[in-house]
């Protein structure tokens, strides 16, 4: 198994004309990209717009991607450039709201107004977080450690195996079982309880 091999296999499919494979790349990286763009813009909705634009640019530029760097590194650069350009063009565009932009108070208020446009989104995010956290708390110790080391610390399976003193295959199994347990809780709540499954991902 090589570094970035899973992304590369999806990238190659997209390059051969399989648009469905690009969905998988977007699903995998949308949160990371939004988080990255949030360094440049404060508003989550604007960050999502920029992330969307970055993904479309990446798709169009994908024929030039040769795999010299990891796909995410390449995507990361596109997102940063898109975010910088968005900030520059926003600063140049005429002010559309009737408030004094130089005033800290009004600028802050503008941010709050934009955030309040999507209260449902914020509530849903909190709900998802609490479900995931509750599901993690309910996991057996070995599964919880494995998934946390992977997702929070970003360790490879080999590193986790060394840390937990077990074979790599066991790590793979533990992480999978942890994900399945959490995913089951998510599906129960969103498909059965709230019916918002389509909003996930």
């Amino acid at each position, binding site marked *: 198994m090589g570094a970035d091999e899973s992304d590369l296999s999806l990238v190659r499919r997209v390059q051969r004309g399989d648009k469905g494979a690009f969905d998988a790349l977007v699903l995998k990286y*949308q949160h990371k990209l939004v988080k990255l763009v949030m360094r440049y813009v404060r508003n989550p909705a604007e960050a999502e717009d920029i992330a969307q634009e970055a993904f479309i640019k990446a798709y169009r530029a994908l024929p030039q991607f040769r795999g010299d760097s990891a796909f995410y590194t390449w995507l990361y650069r596109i997102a940063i450039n898109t975010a910088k350009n968005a900030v520059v063009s926003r600063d140049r565009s005429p002010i559309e709201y009737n408030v004094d932009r130089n005033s800290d108070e009004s600028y802050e208020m503008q941010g709050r107004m934009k955030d309040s446009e999507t209260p449902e989104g914020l509530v849903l995010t909190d709900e998802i977080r609490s479900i995931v956290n509750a599901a993690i708390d309910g996991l057996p110790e070995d599964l919880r450690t494995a998934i946390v080391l992977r997702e929070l610390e970003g360790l490879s399976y080999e590193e986790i195996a060394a840390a937990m003193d077990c074979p790599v295959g066991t790590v793979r199994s533990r992480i999978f079982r942890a994900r399945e347990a959490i995913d089951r809780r998510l599906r129960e709540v969103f498909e059965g309880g709230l019916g918002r499954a389509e909003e996930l991902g």
Partner: protein
Amino acid sequence: MKEELDSQLSAMFDDELPAGECELLARRLSRDEQLKARWGRYAVIGAAIRAERGVRLNARVASRVSVVMRAEPALAAGGVSRPGGARWLRPLAGAALAAGVAAVSILVLRAQAPQGTAIVVAPPVAVNTPRAAAPAARAASAAMSGAPGYVVPPVQRGAGAAVPAAELANYVVAHSMYSPPMTRGTLLSSFITSESGGAGAATPVSIEVLTDPPGDAPSHPQ
């Protein structure tokens, strides 16, 4: 079987699946909506564990991108095109073509020229005149209504033009004014040498002007 597939998906999500299995699973992932939804939830779980500040876990980026993607053309089948390589090859191909045409013209004119006459061969390449064109070329380009920016010097066909010595000397002097200093000196001195060495002799001078520096060179003085 299903569990094995999901286990592979989890490993692929972490970039821990062998390459061969990745290829097969990528193919399935791109077509199986249920598998894709699960893949998306794995991403949500990761983002929730990391508690990424400001990131909405119900982000609709993927669904919005998917809508835009419907209007996008699929990328060319057959893999990656290399426009970067083609870009730098294009001028080389053009130059090679021009050089080939020039070489063929010279060979043809040489073959047709009678022995002992001076031949002045103008390269049959387009010369961009506006930057540093000779007055004659500028006049010629002004006279041409069709393509004012470019002049293709007419090539004298049939027997090579027999140029009298005085006219030839005028030509070399006029031409040397538009040559780079290094070439100018060489051209004039070699002409003077050949003229003085051959004074009184009946040997005609043969000069072949093969190429002019593109852009900076005047078109062939008429």
